[in-house]
């Protein structure tokens, strides 16, 4: 099994004619993802050609794209000024799952988009995230199929390349994954660690979860408490930013220690107190996951 996306997911790409949108549309199709439509306002009627003779019809609006293609998920690659609007358009069109890859979305825009998406009952992943991949089934976003392999481990992370690092090491050690989810590095995000833990718990095949957090906020602490209280799966944790100075934004908009809150120590303590094994080095993620699967 897997969470959020699989071989039945029908994806519409918002911003499909842009540089990133067209590039990753091809990569998604190459991996076997069913990309059924694209949207770029003003470019409706065009066709984007993909690998293996794929032809993806382009529409002006999400409503048209969903009505014509039966898409149930969207992947957003539009520039920051238009990203929140694209998220809300997707939610309104009736797709169940919206993945926003865009980095640099204004946070106040996101506060409105978040409330709008919640009202429409859609699930948002991101923004500022690498998306989600279910190995052997589908990738929605920008995670490369080269570094994953099917198996029993769920991976959830706030970071992009650090996720690749961890997943690449798991794959290299012969430990496969059910689904790898990047939830994004922004302060306001749709899907949280807890949402992913719950989904992995309901997925029949996930036998352990790797949770990769970083400084800033309290999402990891809340997820740790949830895991300690009501999760039946073993969890392996890693926190980036132990050497980060307070008050400085470390690349990600959300990666900042505010006052004494959001430190790596605080998160690591919450992990330990709730029975989550903490990897001190990325390479230890592999060792701890192997133990967790025993």
């Amino acid at each position: 099994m897997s969470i959020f996306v699989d071989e039945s997911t029908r994806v519409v790409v918002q911003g499909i004619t842009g540089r990133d949108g067209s590039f990753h549309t091809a990569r998604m199709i190459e991996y076997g993802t069913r990309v059924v439509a694209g949207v770029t306002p003003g470019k409706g009627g065009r066709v984007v050609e993909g690998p293996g003779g794929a032809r993806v019809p382009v529409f002006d609006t999400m409503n048209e794209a969903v009505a014509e293609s039966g898409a149930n998920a969207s992947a957003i690659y539009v520039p920051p000024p238009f990203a929140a609007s694209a998220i809300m358009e997707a939610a309104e069109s009736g797709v169940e799952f919206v993945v926003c890859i865009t980095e640099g979305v204004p946070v106040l825009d996101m506060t409105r988009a978040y409330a709008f998406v919640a009202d429409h009952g859609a699930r948002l992943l991101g923004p500022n995230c690498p998306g989600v991949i279910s190995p052997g089934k589908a990738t929605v976003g920008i995670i490369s199929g080269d570094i994953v392999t099917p198996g029993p481990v769920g991976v959830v992370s706030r970071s992009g390349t650090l996720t690749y690092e961890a997943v690449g090491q798991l794959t290299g050690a012969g430990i496969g994954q059910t689904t790898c989810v990047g939830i994004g590095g922004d302060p306001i995000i749709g899907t949280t660690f807890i949402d992913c833990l719950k989904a992995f718990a309901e997925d029949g095949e996930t036998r352990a979860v790797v949770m990769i957090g970083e400084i800033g906020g309290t999402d990891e602490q809340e997820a740790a408490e949830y895991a300690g209280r009501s999760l039946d799966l073993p969890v392996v944790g890693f926190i980036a930013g132990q050497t980060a100075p307070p008050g400085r934004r470390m690349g990600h908009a959300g990666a900042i220690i505010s006052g004494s809150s959001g430190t790596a120590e605080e998160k690591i303590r919450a992990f330990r107190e709730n029975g989550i094994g903490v990897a001190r080095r990325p390479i230890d993620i592999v060792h701890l996951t192997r133990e967790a699967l025993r």
Partner: protein
Amino acid sequence: MNLHEFQARELFRDAGMPVPRGRVAITPGEAGAIAADMGGAAVVKAQVHSGGRGKAGGVKLAGTPEEAEAHARAILGMTIRGLTVHKVLLVPVENIASERYVGILVDRAVQAPLFMVSREGGVDIEEVAATNPSAINRLRVDPRFGLLPHQAYRLGSALFDAPSLARQCATVLSQLYQVFMKNGASLCEVNPLIATAAGEVKAIDAKVTIEENELFRRPALESLRDLDAEPNAETHARAAGLSFVKLDGNVGCCVNGAGLAMATMDLVKYYGGDPANFLDIGGSSSPDKVVAALEIITADPNVQVILFNIFGGITRCDDVARGIVEATRRADIRAPILIRLTGTNEAEARDILAAEGFSAFTSMDDVVRAAVERAAA
């Protein structure tokens, strides 16, 4: 992006908030003259991006222009939490009857703007939150509707008993919300908001942080950035589209992706080294960005070794390799460069590097250990 108090006060005044007019001085003489204009007495306040200015001796009451000049002489050039004071703000002395705290921020837990207000004003709000959390009132604002009038009045009444003060406070809170939204802030804070003996509510301090992601559509705010308050390297990095934070160690780090960059710094520390910086070259990195990154890293005299950790995805390893080669051709880089790269176009990258006599690691653990050893040697 942090604003100085004098800049934040202007944003507050533009929104109609009751903020007494202040003036900025950069020399003691100017400070004395301003105090004389104000009638002699003034409060002299260090303008620096740091809390705890009062405790550090950066806020002083002057009874005469001569005192104002003397205070300014003491404050200008002083260091508060590592930051040098280049400017002082002079403001009128107020007759304070009571002090309150009001603030609004983007709260990650409620995924919306959140007001925090407290009767415990004029003190460190983090301390209040830690020691007496029930003294803080919170209100989540639905960003689609804004701060509703009855909500503003409810918060005002929580802060002041007298109806006149509660009403004035409610108005201030609505204005503060306007400043927050209009300027794309992640934090707006007044500490303290005071009631004077004459029954007037006034904001006598101002703190505003602008969300970096909001700046592209507010170019006027970019001009408020204080370049003196950050190391030159961080200014250069921003211009080159790099995310950079200067640290005190000697292992220069160049990584793609913020999470991996932090994990790399942590691993340097784990193996007994000290990172010289956080540096994320970003996703679609061109050779030019890598050249700029190397210039910034090598400008730090503490750097003994340069560590590249690249996990190629959108970032192409061959782009990074070309950037390294280009940078070493342009300048004589003394520090050894240790490179780890894997992922997209790895084979081409290795060929490019090999032609210039570089070799590259495949494992993050190995390259970090090697870099720490070289830095210690």
